[in-house]
Every structure is written in C-alpha cells, then in structure tokens.
C-alpha cells in the first residue's frame, strides 16, 4: 500500500498514534487522520499532537458537556412510541474529521459537476429525452420510475435548476479514493447539524482548533436565501421566501426551524398558505401576504392534494397550478426523485460524460448493471463477494450481501438474477474509511461518510465541509441516525 515506505519513514513517524491516541489501530482501513500513503499535511500533524496530548478524562468531560448542551438546546429528534414522546440527540463525536484543501477541491468540483449533470438529465427527460433516444439510459428505467413525474413534462424551471439543494453521499475506500454512494436530490436533510456541530466544536474543542484556519460554515442561510430569491418569479423585486414544514411532530423539525432562522423567513405549514387568484398567499396578522418562493421540506406526494395525494393534509390546494403558471417557485422542483434513484445512480458516470463530455471527478462505487451481459457474467461469478440489489425496490428489500449469505441463499438468488437480470445491479462490499472516535474503550477507529450540501440557483455553491456521519458501533458500516450513527464536525482546511 504505502509506496516508498522506507523514504517516508521519518515523516510517517510523526503520525504515529501516541498519548491519548495510544492503541489506535485502523488496520487495513484508510484513516482520515493518519492518512497512510497520502502527502503529509502539517495541520494534520499538529492536530494529531494536540489530540494526543488531551487526557482521555478531559475528552470524556467535554463529550458529557456537549451531550448536555445538545439536550438543553433541544437539538433533538423526537421518537414516538405508544403515548410517550422521547427526545433523542443525534450523538456528537467531538473529534473532528479533517479535509485538506486538495481533497476539498476534488469534492467541491466533483459535486458541482454532478449537480450540473443531474439538472441537465432532469431537463432532458422532461423535455427532448435525447439521452433516452441515444440509448444511454434505458427508457423504461426513467419513464416507469416511481420518482418520475408526468406533470413535469414540458415544464420549464428558472435556470433549468431542478435540484436546488443536493446532498451527495460520499465515502472513501481503503485506497483513499472518494466515491459517491448516492445522490439525494429531493429534500436532503442534515445541514443544520453541520452548523450546530461547528458551534459545538467552538464551545468544547476551541483549543484544538486554534490557528488551524478551518473554513467557516456560517454562510449557508445567506446562500440558500439568495438562491431562493434568484428563482422567484422575475417581476418581484423583494421576494418573500418561506420554509414549508410538515410541523413540529416531524423528526427533522429542528432543521426546518434552523433553515427559517438562518434565512430570516417565516416557517410555515400547509395550513398557513392558501391559493387565491392564481397566487400563493400566507395568512398573516395583516391579512394575506404574497409568497414567491417555497423551500419545501415535504415530499412531492404531499405538496398539493389537487395534483398528487388527495388525502394530504400537509400541503396547499392549488399550489402546483400556481407553480406551473410561474407565480411561485418551489425548491426542490417536483419530480427530482427519478434522478437520485438507485437504478439511475448506476448510470451517473455515463450521464456525466453524455452531457458534459467530462470524466466524473468523483467516481461512483463500482457498479455493474446486470442488464449488460458481461456485468451479469461477472456478477454471477463473484456473487459471494458482491452486494447485489434489485433496482426497483427500496428500503433494503431483496438485497443479497454475498459475504454474509449461505450457500443456499446464493443459489436461490442466482435463480432470481438469471430470471430478470435487468432488475439488478451489483457492487463490491465497501471498506469505508475510518476516523478517530471517542469510544468506551478509548479513541478508536470508526467508519464515516460525508454528505456535502450544494445550493443551486443560477450557479452552484457547495458549503465547505458537510455532514460527517460516523458508525459508533465497532465494525458496523451503517451511519444512519436511526441505526446508532452519530455525527462529527467536518473541518475543511483553508
């Protein structure tokens, strides 16, 4: 793995775990702090020595302070069971994840490229459908996709931007290569934690951060508001933006509050909005006031009972009609779900090449599309090593995790796969990178991922950093908050 290990031994020795980091061993996984085989970064060396010098008791005290602080601030999500409501915090690991300037450059340009391609793809499939005619992406995969929205056909959106806020889930493999795991092009959440985690670092880890020139994350609300103002109906000079939330019982309500506060705009629910005379209004103490852009945090199906789910109580009757007549803007656009679908994901590298004539700056996780004969053959030959997924299912149904499957399961799956190859894709099992994390038995390596947030009005801007999620249980690769995952602050070095 490390090239020229002898010549690097001196500099590598500075990055040996010591002090509080004693016994930290990432094994064969890529460690985001020790970074084997990558060029040294002096800031990381300094950070490691600061961290190593912090007594473990101090780290634990700070972690306890941070946890209490999160509870008191109500930075929580509510878990409802029977008649009780329990407020849970998303665990915060106080050891930051660091991204160097050159790494960030790759992530930032890669995310911008990907968002451009997603928007061009959406524009195309809802208009000319050239990519389908050229057989780059199978027509049925798009037109029969659950996220595909007939109502969007022929409809133009400002700047051809459909995905105004995009969360791109990125992992790093054992060689240190960044790879995109999935695109979240509907209503990605988590950005509030990016900013709150930074505040928490400033409170409890400021000595670790001093002088490191970490890039700020304070701009998000302003950038988002500017993008929302850009897409507002053109004739409006001082557009009224609102955040549309399902309400206080939604698990992401804390984030909805955050977004409204950071943009300085009202946080509304469907019942606060009404459509009259072909326009959207909000009910205020001064009567009805015009609304020009809606940053909605409710799903397509619930937006407008006239257009979609007729039983929805969360939406606004007639909203989609107003949108189609250009009197109001909606972000993200309706019908973006087709672009962040698992099946489409496999085609993303080709989609990028097709529209931009560029190589993807961020690679996908190597994905084989079993509809293609060589991929099917490879998948059948390596079934025991691969993760094989049906493309039409969601929520983890019908997935075969080769290394964990019994002989019988493998044989049964082989039959399913052969019967309908075009319904499947396969990927190698991932060895996610790790980051030093405070655990019960000391500072230990735990798997992480990264979700940067891209905001697009006229142009795309990427918040430096993103949400780093960490799998707190040893060995587990699952970083989801519902599965015992936590978060870390993400430091992009200037």
């Amino acid at each position: 793995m490390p090239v020229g290990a002898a010549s690097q031994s001196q500099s590598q020795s500075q990055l040996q775990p010591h002090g509080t980091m004693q016994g930290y061993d990432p094994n064969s996984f890529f460690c985001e702090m020790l970074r084997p085989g990558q060029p040294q970064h002096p800031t990381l060396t300094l950070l490691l020595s600061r961290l190593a010098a912090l007594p473990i008791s101090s780290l634990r005290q700070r972690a306890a302070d941070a946890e209490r602080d999160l509870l008191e601030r109500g930075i929580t999500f509510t878990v409802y069971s029977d008649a009780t409501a329990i407020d849970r915090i998303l665990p915060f690991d106080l050891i930051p994840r660091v991204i160097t300037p050159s790494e960030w450059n790759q992530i930032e340009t890669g995310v911008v490229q990907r968002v451009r391609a997603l928007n061009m793809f959406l524009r195309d499939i809802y208009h000319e459908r050239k990519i389908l005619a050229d057989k780059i992406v199978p027509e049925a995969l798009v037109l029969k996709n659950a996220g595909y929205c007939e109502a969007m056909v022929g409809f133009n959106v400002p700047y051809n931007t459909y995905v105004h806020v995009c969360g791109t889930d990125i992992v790093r493999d054992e060689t240190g290569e960044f790879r995109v795991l999935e695109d979240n092009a509907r209503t990605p959440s988590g950005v509030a934690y990016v900013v709150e985690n930074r505040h928490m670092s400033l409170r409890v880890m400021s000595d670790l951060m001093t002088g490191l020139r970490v890039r700020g994350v304070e701009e998000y609300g302003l950038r988002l508001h500017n993008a929302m103002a850009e897409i507002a109906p053109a004739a409006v000079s001082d557009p009224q933006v609102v955040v549309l939330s399902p309400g206080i019982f939604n698990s992401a309500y804390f984030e909805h509050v955050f977004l409204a506060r950071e943009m300085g705009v009202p946080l509304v629910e469907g019942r606060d909005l009404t459509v009259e005379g072909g326009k959207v209004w909000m009910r205020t103490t001064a009567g009805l006031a015009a609304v020009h852009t809606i940053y909605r945090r409710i799903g397509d199906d619930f937006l407008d009972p006239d257009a979609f789910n007729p039983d929805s109580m969360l939406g606004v009757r007639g909203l989609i009609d107003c949108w189609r007549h250009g009197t109001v803007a909606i972000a993200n656009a309706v019908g973006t779900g087709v672009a962040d679908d698992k099946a489409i994901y496999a085609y993303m590298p080709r989609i990028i090449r097709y529209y931009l004539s560029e190589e993807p700056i961020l690679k996908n996780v190597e994905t084989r599309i079993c509809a293609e004969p060589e991929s099917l053959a490879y998948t059948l030959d390596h079934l025991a090593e691969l993760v094989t997924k049906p493309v039409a299912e969601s929520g983890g149904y019908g997935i075969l995790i080769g290394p964990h499957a019994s002989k019988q399961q493998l044989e049964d799956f082989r039959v399913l796969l052969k019967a309908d190859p075009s319904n499947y894709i396969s990927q190698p099992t991932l060895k996610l990178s790790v980051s030093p994390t405070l655990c019960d038995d000391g500072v230990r390596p735990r798997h992480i991922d990264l979700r940067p947030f891209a905001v697009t009005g006229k142009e795309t801007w990427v918040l430096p950093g993103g949400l780093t999620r960490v799998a707190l249980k040893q060995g587990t690769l699952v970083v989801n908050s519902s599965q015992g995952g936590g978060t870390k602050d993400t430091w992009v070095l200037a």
Partner: protein
Amino acid sequence: MDINPNRHTAYLIARHAEGTIWLARYMERIENLARILDVTNTFARDADDSRNWLSVPRINGDLVEFHKRHQIATQRTVGEFYLLDTTNETSVQSFIIAARENARTLRALISTEMWLQINVFYGHIRALDAASIVPEHFTAVCNMLKDGAQSHTGITEGTFYRDQAWHFYMIGRYLERADQTTRLLDTRFHSLVPREDASDNIDAGQWNALLRAAAGYHAYRREHPNGYHPQEVACFLLANRAFPRSVGLNLGRVERHLTQLRTSYGLRGMSAALERLDQLNATMTYQNVTELASRDLSPFLDFVQREIGGLHQDIVETFI
C-alpha cells in the same frame, strides 16, 4: 416609532401570533399557580387544613375536576393535582407541556435563549415526582417554579426582538395577569366579606394571604400601614396603576400594545377589542371600585372575567 424604510416587510404568520399569546399566558399561569400554592402552604399550617387547601382548586375553578380525583384537599392531594398530574389541564405539567409546544412552534421566531430556558425548565418540571412534593420540599418546588417562570420573563425582556410577535406576547402576559388577579380577588373576597365582624386576627391573616398570593403584600402595607379594609384591598388589586398585577394596570398595557400594533404595523380591525377595553378600563377607578366593594363585588368580578375572556376572543378573531 421610527421605522427603517429599507427593511424587508416582516410579516407575522397569524397562527404564530396566537402561539405567542398562549406562550405568555402559560408561563404566567405557572408563576401564579406556584405563588398561590406556596402562600397556601405557608398559610394553611395555622388554620383548618382541608378548608384552605380547597381554596386553590376554587380559585382556579377546578373543584369538579379536583373532586373527580381526590376526596379531600390536603397538601398532598392538591400538590399532586397541580404539580404532578398530567391529566389535569391546569397542572404545571400541562402548562409547561403546552408552553414548550408553543415555543417549539415559535422556535424560528423567539430567541435561542428563550427556547433554551424553556426547554431546561420543562426538564425540571417533568422530573417532579411524589418525593419532590413532600412537606419539607414543597416551598423549594414552588420557588423553583417561580424562578423558572421569572427567568423566562427576564430573558424575554432582554432578548425578544420588539416586533409584532413581541406585542402579541405582551398582550398575552397582561391579559393573563389581569385574569389571575380577578380570580384571586373573586374567591377570597367572596369568603371574606361576609365575615367582616370576625376577629381581627383571622381577617388579617386572610388578607395577608390574599395579598401575598398576588405578590402585593409589602406594597400594600406601605400604602396602607394602618390595616386592612376590604374596599382598599379591592382598589389596590383592581384600580391601582402602580401595582404590577393590578387589573387596571394590566388592561392599560394591553391597550398600549394593541395601539402599537395599529400604529406601527398598520394592523386593522381591532375596534371591537379596543372598544371593549375602553369600557372595561373605565370601570377600574378608585371611586367605582370603592362603591362596588361596599356592597357585593362578585357580580362585578364575574363581569370583568367574562370581558377579559372576550378580549382574548376579539383579538384572536381579528388577527387569527
């Protein structure tokens, strides 16, 4: 008011206006209830225990609900009913749950420090249990509740941006104070007046408790060092414009904030509320209260309570 011509017109969602009124009212209720419980606790030690504890559900109009759950009123049963019982809509548990839910709804509007304090206060109240209301802790719990509610008031004063939402918040606070003082006066006056000929000791003790429950004891002593007269107590609690919990002062504040909503924010349609307020305010004079109190104050206090309820309704119907 000097308004920056370059500001973005910041509208207030009607539902949020109502939420701020309720947030203020619930936090006031916690403070008032804690004070009444504390005064009753201190007061009841020398007198007939069950009679005095029953006065708490009587003040709050809770006799029926109370008797559904408890046969006799003691420190333990009244404490349980008001401090622990989440099924009782007028317990501090119900108040803080409702206050926090309102604060959550208004989270984007209120200050972070307001939210943080309410959230922590909520945690303290939700943690109360049977062990925390035993006699030796009772006053400490009441003090914790008063502290929390008053911290809220202070943080709100110091951090809540003075726009429309603030005015609605203040309207809620002052309506609630006026209402609470009226209730207090109503029940105590009812039981006190017919016993004017009773011994001075008992009367002094009862007036004393009444004024303490309204946080007005020392101020009253300063103004009336010679003793208690029912008309003077009534005037103090209704017509006095210096006592922070008098009905007259609070109604005056409601009027001031309603007027500011009209002049600074151009809100219209509040003539019903202002007219009702004018008429009500006109009754809060020393002369009028003295005259009414020399006969029977109860019908008047009933009228005031109805009118305060009517005011809340007028405001909600106008703006919300």
